[in-house]
């Protein structure tokens, strides 16, 4: 977390969402932790259980969990579509839970966008009207919102489709509309709730690439929900893995793959092809004094997959350089073999 010095865009602390009980029925201690005795009651379901996390500016946080893990509830708490039972949420330093209905509407109109799993397009509106909808809610002038919406349509590659109705579009196209709509107000914070889960695998891959392209241009602060670990690895700056409402582990993809914190996380990481996740920087060793190095260096953020062949072909260590071309470590052939062919079950150290 390279931007710890800056204030996080989203900060949530000791967040709980417990269904079937009201907050005044709960005992809280000074740190905001809830006395777990309520769990014995009938009809009480804990969807989000003591979650604390920060998302910094321009960061893409993927919340990964299987169905029922509370990830969708968590993202709805962050946008206050669901009222949390307890805890605090700050967006750019402002307490979201203390906001009035009016302030909340202002926040959503200007700061937030959200993409939904089943697209949630208004069936009676055309593509253009759907995309312009948040702008209309803001009371924007017609000429202006049409122009902005047309820009969004071009951005997501739906030119010529502006007068179609959602029912006339394929799933992938519908989600492009959903994405365009959520971006129309130019939000700083972007929530995506399993945006690609309802799509076919090929379309999903295409949309993921499209999403990465957009993010490289837009640099939004993103909370991305998925149940697909591969998707999480592909997209995330950091991954938070949720289980039973708890965050089991939060960290960079390679950290999670190399050092799964719990048995549960290890189940996901065991099948991951490491060469596709790990970078040179995460597996390099320290450079020993006066060691002979190969002539060609690799970059610190190169994926193992792309450099493996080269490293394996060298009898001497390969230097790893950072963005300033300074040598920061070395890669040994033996280490590379270990990474590629080491048995992949269980949490393996180093």
């Amino acid at each position, binding site marked *: 977390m390279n931007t710890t010095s800056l204030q996080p865009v989203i900060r949530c602390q000791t967040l709980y969402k417990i269904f079937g009980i009201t907050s005044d029925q709960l005992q809280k201690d000074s740190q905001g932790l809830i006395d777990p005795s309520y769990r014995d009651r009938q009809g009480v379901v804990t969807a989000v259980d003591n979650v604390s996390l920060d998302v910094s500016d321009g960061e893409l946080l993927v919340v990964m969990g299987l169905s029922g893990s509370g990830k969708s509830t968590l993202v*709805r708490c962050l*946008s206050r*579509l669901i009222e949390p039972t307890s805890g605090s949420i700050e967006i750019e330093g402002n307490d979201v839970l203390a906001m009035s209905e009016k302030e909340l*509407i*202002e926040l*959503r*109109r*200007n700061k*937030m*966008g*959200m993409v*939904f*799993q*089943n*697209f*949630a*397009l*208004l*069936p*009676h*509106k*055309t593509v*253009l*009207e759907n995309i312009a*909808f*948040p702008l*209309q*809610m*803001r009371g924007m002038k017609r000429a202006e919102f049409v122009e902005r919406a047309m820009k969004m349509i071009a951005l997501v590659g739906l030119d010529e489709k*502006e*007068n179609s109705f959602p029912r006339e579009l394929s799933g992938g196209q519908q989600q492009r509309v959903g994405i365009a*709509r*959520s971006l129309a*107000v130019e939000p700083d914070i972007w*929530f995506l709730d399993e945006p690609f889960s309802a799509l076919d695998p090929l379309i999903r891959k295409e949309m993921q690439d499209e999403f990465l392209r957009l993010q490289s241009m837009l640099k939004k602060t993103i909370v991305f929900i998925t149940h697909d670990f591969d998707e999480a690895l592909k997209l995330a700056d950091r991954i938070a893995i949720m289980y039973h409402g708890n965050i089991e582990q939060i960290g960079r993809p390679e950290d999670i793959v190399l050092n799964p914190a719990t048995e549960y996380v290890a189940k996901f990481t065991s099948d991951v092809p490491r060469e596709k996740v790990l970078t040179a920087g995460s597996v390099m060793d320290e450079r020993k004094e006066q060691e002979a190095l190969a002539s060609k260096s690799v970059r610190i953020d190169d994926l193992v997959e792309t450099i493996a062949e080269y490293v394996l072909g060298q009898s001497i260590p390969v230097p790893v350089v950072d963005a300033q071309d300074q040598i920061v470590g070395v890669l040994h052939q033996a280490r590379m073999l270990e990474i590629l062919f080491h048995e992949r079950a269980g949490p393996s150290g180093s």
Partner: protein
Amino acid sequence: MRGPGHPALEATTTPFKEISLSRMKDLLLKGLPPEQRAKGALVLLAIVGVLILAKPFNLIPDFLDELPQHTYQSSINKEIQEIKRTELVPIGAALEWTFYYLRDDLHVSVVTRFFSTSLKALVDVVHNILSGGRKGFGLDAPPWSALLVIALTLGYALKGWRLSLLGGGTVCYFAIFGLWTYAMTTLAYLAVAVPISIIIGLFLGIWCYKKKSVEVSILPILSVAQTMPHFAYLIAVVVFFGIGHQTGVIATIIFAVPPMVRLTLLGLQTISPEIVEAGKMAGCTSRQLLFRVQLPSARNEIMIGINQVIMQCLAMVVIAAFIGADGLGFRLLHKLIALKLGECVEIGFAIVLLALVLDGLSKAWAEKKRDYRANLPFYRRYKYSILLVVLVAIAYILASYFPILNKIPRDLDITYAKSWDGFIDWTVVNWQTRDFRYIMLVHILTPLRDALLFMPFIAIMVLVAGVGLLLGGYYSALLTLGFLLFIALAGWWDRAMITLYMVLFSTFICIVVGIPLGLWSAMREKRARTALFWCDTFQTFPSFIYIIPAIMLFRVNDFTAIMAVVAYAMVPAVRYTVEGLKNIPPELHEAVTMAGCNKRQRLLQLQLPVALPHIMLGVNQTVMFAFSMVIIAAFVGTIDLGQSIFKALSETALGKGVTLGLCVSFMALTVDHLVVRWARERRRLLGLD
């Protein structure tokens, strides 16, 4: 309500007397699990049988056999002997006092009178525009040819040339057969009643959606309102609003609002939560959310609601003729009383045509796809509006030169009633329905009626409450028991039994004819579509219309009433059967095909069991339709609750009329509760929801 473990096995191994306390508790709370119901039903039937058999041996005390009643019907001839025994609880009188207290002592009449004068004014305004009125400004009624081009253009713009021709044909029909003024009056009623019903219905539907407490309190009222016979309303409406045009409109509104409320609520409740969330995330205020996200997303259901409102209004506009609402309905009633059947047919066709046109137009409007930003030039975007204005102008100009286009003179006296009369006379001579009627009445209907009347009331109460207990536990038992107890205590038991016998027999015929018809129709895709088309068509006819052919064929008696009921109530039996079979998932069909089923096995092993819950919902609808129609059919002379309601209407006996209405409503709701409960549970067990 799945039983624990293997309840069926348990039941066979456990001796009867060892029923544990916990199982009794389960029975009370949830009814019997489905596997044990056959056993429970046997026990129940045995109890009821004992109660019935005990009667001839004078083992049933009088107060369990028959409670004091208003009238006693001797079963041998149709004479009604008024035996002045009062009811046990003066429900009717209490209701009457309440209503009059409200009206006179609390001066609710001030409010109702305000409504009635405003509505009267509204109807008057529309009526004056449509039919010339008092000719202020020198404006006369619009020429019929103007209405003709409006109907033609509207039909074409919304759907196509078929609807256009239907609309134009209907207008011509009104004009040619001298029904113009009546039709305009009916249209004026509709023009006032429909928008008001829609607005009230929308408002209540939204309110129900927003507040659970409102939903819980309004829905039962809607159920009663929907099952209450039309005539029972009319009495209350007359007492509070007086007699006249506006009263018809008010009765119409009360009758048309419930389906609108239900469909609005259904539409709002079935919007995917994600859509609402998307609206919130777009920064909608709650008002924007309602008007720009929720209501538009519920558009389909709301449009069906509007269509329903129009149809209900049309049906009620006819019935409101009984309290002096003018128009086509009044004309029909007038001729029906005089038994001028040929003219009845003529007017009946006019009403049916009007129903079809309004149904077609409103449905087409609902399905109309709008092209918001097609970016067309003005004259193309508004081509139909421009066409309409031009055509109406042409019609006005032509009408001023050719009077025949302005108004078809009355003295032309174009009619085909005479030929119908001739046909009817011919059927009387050549289609000897007399013997058939005689056999039905003497050997089937009358014995069935007497059997129901013979049964001690306690036996029927035990039967119904027992079924309630088996299906739904104490809640269902108490509810149905309460419904029946009301009828018994109000002193209308025997009359209710006569109504029940007609409903049961009609339903029986509908099932025997309608379900096989539905099965046959559903075998081929094309046939199924044809069947559904005819169901749609017949369902648009106002219920009153069905009486005309019944009288034509069978004259005036119980059997006629039953035939009218059968004709009207057949539609849902067929429709639900077709739908039930069509909705079976195709994989299931493929699975049984791969299992090597022949046609008969497919029907018995797959189609019937899976479609049964839906078919039962159809049967339930048939029963509901039958209850509503049997009261209207009382008009042709039956001796059931319907006849008493008619009498109450003519005497404006408010308490009595409303009590009778509630009796009918409660019988219908009893059936409804039990069948719907069973069907829902069954659907869930089959995993169809």
